[in-house]
């Protein structure tokens, strides 16, 4: 059995002045993921290590971290794909609660501001929709709220003075916008939510563990919608065609 070193970020705001790294050595078994090692450390070596996890199956999006500098789910990162020393840090876009645990509640604060799903008036009691018309939104609905996209987004992470709700919340907005029976106009909301700051570097799309094409399928279409909305000619044509949406 081989051993690997896990260099883990430690910081307890209650007692530590500065963050530091602590090294643990763990026996590596076949098929092991980073979370296996971190759980082992937190339960069998050092119970003071704080780590957030729940499903251990890439379904709940709890165990987000930066592994060797890359935003990833610990439960979905194979130890065998990494070197002999593995560095694990918390997501840097959020405030640290303790060690690897960050406070992600800001995402919900932003989510609350999205104009909610608003079904078209006069729909029958039981709705009919075609599979093809629900598929785009279904892609976005795969989101497990791991917030790695938020972590990877340089606007969200580094430019806090530029208010931007982040890729996750653009996805959430797009879920409603692409719902075939929705009637709400969210362009004005997106306009004041910092969507314009996104310069389409696709970092969010790259880190998404659900492989949602965040930039291609949600951000770019929403940006286009925003631009069209501001275009006087488009406005006029839409109005004439009765397609004011």
């Amino acid at each position: 059995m081989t051993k690997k070193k896990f260099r883990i970020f430690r910081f307890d705001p209650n007692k530590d002045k500065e963050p530091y790294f602590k090294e643990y050595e763990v026996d590596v078994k076949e098929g092991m993921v980073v979370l296996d090692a971190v759980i082992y450390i937190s339960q069998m070596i050092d119970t003071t290590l704080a780590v957030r996890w729940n499903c251990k199956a890439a379904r709940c999006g709890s165990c987000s971290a930066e592994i060797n500098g890359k935003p990833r789910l610990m439960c979905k990162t194979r130890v065998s794909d990494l070197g002999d020393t593995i560095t694990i840090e918390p997501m840097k876009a959020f405030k640290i609660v303790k060690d690897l645990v960050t406070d992600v509640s800001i995402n919900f604060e932003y989510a609350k501001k999205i104009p909610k799903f608003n079904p078209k008036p006069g729909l029958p009691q039981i709705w009919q929709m075609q599979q093809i018309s629900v598929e785009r939104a279904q892609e976005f609905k795969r989101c497990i709220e791991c917030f790695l996209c938020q972590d990877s987004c340089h606007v969200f992470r580094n430019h806090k003075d530029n208010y931007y709700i982040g890729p996750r919340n653009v996805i959430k907005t797009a879920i409603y916008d692409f719902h075939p029976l929705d009637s709400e106009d969210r362009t004005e909301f997106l306009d004041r939510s910092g969507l314009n700051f996104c310069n389409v570097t696709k970092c969010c799309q790259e880190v998404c563990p659900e492989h949602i094409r965040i930039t291609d399928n949600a951000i770019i279409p929403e940006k286009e919608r925003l631009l069209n909305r501001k275009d006087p000619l488009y406005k006029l044509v839409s109005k004439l065609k009765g397609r004011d949406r």
Partner: protein
Amino acid sequence: MNPEIKKIDTDVLIIGAGGAGLRAALEISQANLSCLILTKSVLGKAHTVMAEGGIAASLGDVDPQDNWTVHFADTIVEGVYIGNYRMAELLAKEAPERVYELERYGALFDRTPEGKIMQRAFGAHTYRRLCHIGDKTGLEIIRVLEDQILYRDNVKILDETVVTKLFAKNNRAIGAVAWSLREGIFYAISAKAIIVATGGLGRIYKVTSNSHESTGDGISLAFQIGARLRDMEMVQFHPTGMVWPEGVRGLLVTEGVRGEGGILLNKNGERFMLRYSPEKKELDARDVVARAIYREIIEGRGTEHGGVYLDITHKGAAFIKKKLPAMYEQFKEFAGVDITKEKMEVAPTVHYFMGGIYVDPETTATTVDGLFSAGEAASGLHGANRLGGNSLADILVFGRRAGIYAALYAKDHDLIKLDDSEVEQEVKRVLDYIDDKATEDQDPYIIIEDLRQTMSDKVGILRDPNDLEYALNKIYSLKEKAKNVRARGSLTFNQGLLGCLELNHMLLLAELIVRAAIERKESRGAHFRKDYPKKDRSYLKNIVFDYNDNNIKMSYIPVPEIPDDLKKYVKEEVYD
């Protein structure tokens, strides 16, 4: 250590933010009452998100012959006649409306070519009945309920907050003390009514599909203030969990794989379900398929990693990626197996707890006034075996009912404030677990792992009386050891402390599971005794536990008889 204790008064306190808790909160908010939700994980991470296959509701969108009477009968028959008929009736009647309601909240189910809701086949459902969103139905339910809750001012959510104790006065639930992991402080909550929606206890077992947080806390907390528990011996093994790599052993492989046409093979390539269940084959009830797989493995026809094969390759890559995207991803990422080309290796895994808190079928009221319970924490609906898809229906139908009746109770009753000295005493009890001088052998997880291994080894699919006795004695000795567990460090996100608190719940519930399993000397549904392999008419009853003055009392209650107007839908129970 002198931590802050924040006081909160609320009309209704909900413990748990899975489907049942969130659905209940909606009713309370709509009744214009204040509602506080406590959850051990972050909002939106509850175990409900793991539910894959779908929600059972007799819409008849795919099989028009389906209706509530068939769903009702399926539920009673597969619960092997010890389920509560009224709960099954309510579930079958109300599930369709709960599904349509989800759609109005914004849920996007897979569609039929006519644009109706697509329904898939599932084990022991007479018709194709499971409405689904690929294999991520639970996630969708949580998200749309979350969307409903987020916008409401009268619902407050404290996530990553663990209830350490419930309080009752003269058999009425009055409040709780909770510890916030994230804030490192305590809350003293006084409430007019309380709903326990904390889910199941699969984590008591080593091999389980359940999330980290499913340690049965709510069931244990309710029991300790006098709530009756029922059917504790009824632990469901899902037939198909992953077996390899070790880190994901037990992780669920959805029944949807079999529902969409997957077949089970032993190492000789034999489709063995033809031997065990020639008619229903892979889609027989979960207990039947789980025992068949288990037998194949222990009789030497298992695979390299101790499982059997599950094969869906014949359906083609496009179909598999569309209908089972999460399974495709799961095997690719964790096992390096491409399920469109290769067989999966699977074995039974602890999946669901049919037992739990005894509730009134209409109102979800427990035996403690002002205390309600819904979802996996409650019992009665599923009897000795749960049908796939019935748990998602359960959390919505009975989550809603818990909300309605808790709101009515709260409107009718005054708030009784928690006593300060009792709160301080409880906070002190929790703080006493923290000791920076504690040694490593006082860590709780050593005992937790020992307990989990014991339960998986000795209280499994085929129950041996000697194994059960061994397990019980082991639990008693672990209880002694548990008195010395301690944690180090601060109150903020202290895993060690969380382990200390969870350990006590797990040990108590494990004891009840084993005692009930020893008591039921027959085989029924999920409970299979090697020494009593047949069903016995004299056990057509429910085992219940009550707790008074530190005494655990076990007794029997009769299963309420199905009235004639419902009985006509159900085929009569047969005994050998």
